[in-house]
């Protein structure tokens, strides 16, 4: 009896995910350009939130400087494109490599010398900050004056050079988000995922049962960094301009972590749900205020604060775990 009962929620989850993916694929045909830009924003936050979730949600390593990897990915791919004509379809490999090096450096410094908890979080902020300051003075990529990519109006979508319509960028991001989701799902079903959970729950106990804690924490940091750098590649070619204070700023790092925290830390669907809830509520709130003729700048930030308070007080594990129970999808407790 227990076998079929356990399989049913998984099957239902797959059906729901399939429906969601189909819906997301069809949406660009029916929504207007504004809604498409909002959907792109949701997918971006979902993707980058998922990347952060690997490190914090799965392996329990709090990073408050994840904008570092996004920024590095953005600058490396953009610089290769502008200075050497390397298309982002190849440039993303270099972006990943550089993010891996930085991730490895942070991980090595922290884990080899026993820096953990809030001190590890401070280390991640420090790296993001000094990289920002470094890029402020890095004239090769425009320094503080900004780095601009040449914008070309084309009649066709060029996926190799990431030049094309907003629809192309939407589908690219959808593919990235779906890919990241599947990768995380596979990882969580694998030995690596179980090791990460063990480390997250009790590092000493994990070490005591023979898990190479240093190795698996390094793996989480580096994988998370690599995934985040891809979001940077997207940002660079979508916005076509980069400023160190905007891309490496602490605000960006906070923006990255809000989705997974609200949605459900350490869950697969939490970052996606969190990004959706936060963006839709913020846009809805703004639209309602506009319709009522109320002009109150900053109301969204206040609203974010209230949301966080609400989640911390009433849904400490985020929205998704409780929603998952209501939907009857609670098969293994980690989806």
């Amino acid at each position, binding site marked *: 009896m227990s076998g079929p009962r356990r399989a049913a929620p998984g099957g239902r989850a797959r059906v729901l995910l399939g429906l969601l993916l189909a819906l997301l694929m069809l949406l660009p045909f029916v929504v*207007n350009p504004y809604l498409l830009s909002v959907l792109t924003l949701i997918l971006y936050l979902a993707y980058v939130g998922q990347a952060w979730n690997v490190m914090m949600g799965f392996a329990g390593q709090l990073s408050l400087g994840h904008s570092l990897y996004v920024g590095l990915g953005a600058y490396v791919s953009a610089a290769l494109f502008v200075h050497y004509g390397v298309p982002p379809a190849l440039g993303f490999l270099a972006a990943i490599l550089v993010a891996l090096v930085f991730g490895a450096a942070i991980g090595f410094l922290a884990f080899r010398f026993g820096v953990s908890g809030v001190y590890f979080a401070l280390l991640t902020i420090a790296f993001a900050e000094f990289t920002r300051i470094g890029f402020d003075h890095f004239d090769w990529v425009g320094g503080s*004056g900004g780095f601009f990519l040449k*914008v070309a*109006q084309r009649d066709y979508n060029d996926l190799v050079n990431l030049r094309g319509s907003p629809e192309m960028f939407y589908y690219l991001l959808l593919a990235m988000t779906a890919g990241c989701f599947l990768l995380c799902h596979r990882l969580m079903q694998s030995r690596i995922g179980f090791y990460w959970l063990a480390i997250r729950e009790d590092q000493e106990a994990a070490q005591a049962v023979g898990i190479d804690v240093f190795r698996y924490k390094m793996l989480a940091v580096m994988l998370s960094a690599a995934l985040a750098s891809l979001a940077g590649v997207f940002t660079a070619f979508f916005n076509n301009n980069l400023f160190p204070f905007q891309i490496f700023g602490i605000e960006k790092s906070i923006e990255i972590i809000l989705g997974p925290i609200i949605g459900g830390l350490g869950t697969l669907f939490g970052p996606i749900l969190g990004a959706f809830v936060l963006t839709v509520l913020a846009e809805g709130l703004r639209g309602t205020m506009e319709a009522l003729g109320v002009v109150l700048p900053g109301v969204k930030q206040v609203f974010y604060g209230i949301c966080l308070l609400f989640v911390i007080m009433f849904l400490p594990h985020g929205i998704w775990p409780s929603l998952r129970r209501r939907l009857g999808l609670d098969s293994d407790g980690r989806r």
Partner: protein
Amino acid sequence: MTSTSNKSARRLPGVTRRTFTGSAIAAAAVAGVAPFNIVRGQAAALKVGVILPKSGPQAFFGQSCQRGIDIAPALLAEMGYNVKLDVTSVDFETNVDLARSRAEKLVNDGAHVLIGPFDSGAAGAIAQVAEQKGVPFMINIAAAPQITEQGYKYVFRNFPTAPMLIGNGLSLMKEFFKATGATPKTAVFMHVNDTFGQASARGVEALFPRLEMPFKILETISYDPAARDLSVEVAKAKASGAEMVMLVSRLNDSILLVREMVKQRFEPMGIISPGSPGMYEEQFFTTLGKFSEYCVTNVPWYNPKSEIAQKVAGAFRKQFPNDRLIGHIFNVGFSFESMMIVADAYQRAKSTNGQALAEALRATKIDKRVMIGGAIQFNEKGQATTIASAALQNRNLEPKVVLPAEAQELKPVFPVPGWNNRG
């Protein structure tokens, strides 16, 4: 053709030859009066979408710009612009990703023209949307030169680029020395080492030899914007023996610096900024009192002698009686001018069509303006080229225009009196 039409008409239920003929006449009548739709279109309101950072780190500046937008419709009507402006303002929260989304929303809601955004990154993002949708975009404030170097057809900027700002500021220094008859031979260059300060320092470094400045920089001293104590930096500057301090600052550090100079009795011929905030701001005067006097800043500024500027000042005081104009005039001036340029283009284009508006904007020539400079005009890239800087000297606890001569409120004083001989 006729038989086919008749067959089609016969096939449709409820469509007789009479109703078909009636419909055809009605269609012809509609087609006949179609040209009048153009006339009606001219009377329609121009939907202006304004995108500003009204929350987040740049909230003050965004809200300050908004004041310039708010006073525009009534004042433009009073000035004789016979156009209806329907303004919708949105906040992009100092977030580039949102700037793009907000622009999409405004265009989707029917905006005929976009104005904003007090930020180069956001301007870059909005410009792409504007270009894609064929909606003219008038940049009020954003200095990155690359924005108008992209070959855009719908992007216009009524603000100097960063190199233009520094170039104007340095050139004005030469005029300032000429006007006062006193030229320092040496200077110490002190600058804050944040994003803005570094960019300015690079600009100074690049332009200084090219502009053949009459003084030599003996030493360059950079300092942290969050510094609590600048005693070492000021001591170094004093020890350099420089006759003048050239300063690129923010507000807090400029206050600290002057205090320290007073304390260390460092009395150069003057403190001159080639273009940075700080020394002309309200807090500088209230905190330093008489020691704020005679500091000089070269920035784009409103022309207090211009008739339009006086009208803008009057409208501002009436609509925002609790705000001091001097703290907002930079943002208000450029934002109001953006509205004026757009209204002027619409009046000439007589259409809300994006291409017609863009062509009218390209042909802009407005002689009477708020800010100091020549007639408002755009080059082939959409960049305004005639915006000048003013030399502001702090006098009687207010920044006063001392140069150029056509906007002069007071005569420049240089070398400045010693710290104890002020006020």
